[in-house]
């Protein structure tokens, strides 16, 4: 945990500049942030990790999605100081050395993008979707809340609805997630 927030835990406030520690795509990074900095700005502007994108900055598009402590999260509505000590995996960090993650491969294979702006968020979200389905989490379109999850087209559309694509690459995205789910 970074210095600044340790002070906070003993009852003092942290004003303005605070030192925090994040593990980003496998690397431990220490940085000093203003308390008002979002996790998205901390990653992009301070750590030069630019795969999470700023689309709306208000939680409405999903382009800033990363895996935070293993689950998909929006980084534009998260204050960096609140996530001191957390582990962040961005789309960039999903690939191991030269090998792409199988979800990334599936996006390539099925043209799950056009301009690519939303893609890092889509990919992280899809990794989250597969994991949630594996854990048996139901969705809004799940008929029987207590049955096993089967990732049908409708289930994938619903579960990916937090990621907008201005290019309308949805058919490719759906095909990619479907293939990755079967892998």
């Amino acid at each position, binding site marked *: 945990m970074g210095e600044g927030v340790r002070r906070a835990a003993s009852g003092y*406030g942290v004003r303005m500049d605070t030192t925090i520690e994040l593990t980003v795509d496998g690397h431990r990074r220490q940085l000093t942030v203003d*308390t*008002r900095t979002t996790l998205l700005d901390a990653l992009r502007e301070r750590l030069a990790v630019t795969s999470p994108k700023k689309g709306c900055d*208000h939680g409405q598009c999903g382009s800033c999605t990363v895996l935070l402590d293993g689950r998909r999260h929006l980084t534009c509505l998260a*204050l960096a100081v609140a996530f001191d000590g957390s582990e962040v995996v961005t789309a960039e960090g999903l690939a191991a050395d030269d090998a792409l993650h199988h979800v990334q491969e599936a996006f390539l294979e099925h043209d799950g993008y056009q301009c690519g702006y939303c893609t890092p968020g889509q990919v992280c979200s899809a990794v989250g979707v597969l994991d949630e389905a594996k854990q048996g989490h139901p969705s809004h379109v799940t008929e029987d*809340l207590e049955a096993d999850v089967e990732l049908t087209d409708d289930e994938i559309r619903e579960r990916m*609805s937090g990621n907008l694509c201005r290019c309308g690459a949805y058919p490719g995205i759906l095909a990619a997630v479907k293939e990755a789910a079967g892998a």
Partner: protein
Amino acid sequence: MRELDYVRASDVEEAVALVSGDPDARYLGGGTNLVDHLKLGIARPARLVDVGRLGLDGVEEQDGPDGRVLHVGANVRNSDLAAHPVVRSAFPVLSRALLSGASGQLRHQASTGGNLLQRTRCVYFQDVTTPCNKREPGSGCSAVGGYGRQDAVLGASEHCVATHPSDMAVAMAALDAVVVVRGRQGERRVPVRELHRLPGDRPDLDTTLEHGDLVTGVELPFTDAARCSTYLKVRDRASYAFALVSVAAALELDGDVVRDVRIAWGGVAHKPWRATAAEEALTGRAVDEDAVRAAVDAELAAARTTDQTAYKLPMLRGATTRTLLRLAGKDPS
């Protein structure tokens, strides 16, 4: 954005002391509403007290003063609550309401406490360049005579016609959930139906809580009706949109006849609207289309609509009928 002091409280007592002693301090939960409001300039606190790591993240069966309850900690995330096996089987309306809200990412971030206390999505409330009595008491209400498709049709006042946006809270109102609150005077329990208020001449107050009151959890009473419950949300698109109207309903039949029914509506008022007149009209009767329509009309006798909101009444009639017929096993075509 104003300069901001960030404190991670180490326990509940410290959190309550820090916020109740400082009018410029606010609790930070998952941040999905509050961080947005900081950016928009709607909220201008000088200090945030982060309650996200206080624990308060258990879901446990307990014996409450009035029987068995499921106690849900304030920090349980919306996704985890929706997926909890006991919630799925004993309170399906709650799972369904949670799953119909926001997106997969946001549900991992949003907390139970923060969801209850999220603020209206009235477009003028969110635009600091326009008058709004809720944001700036006495400045006027831009929604009256303005864009008003989302506005309230029940319980509104001339000072504010906004609706409460939470799906989860509507399900909790139907379930007669009780909110556990820790304030300066210690712990107290507030029925969720008494948590949110109607706007009257104080639309700046969303709830009956006092500054510094911390929601520590919610209790859900186990009932037969809760097991047979569901949520129907009507919106402009199939996913990732707030409700135009929504219906949370729970039903216990005695043969063909209603023994216990609970109906709550979302998208119609400044608070989740428990349709008690409709419930009374249905109790002791068989569930059929005519009976439900008559019951809904009894509730809607007090409704006030404009050209822009008139659509909500037939929508409520249809959604409520469909929901209750489905629960009664008479699936409407």
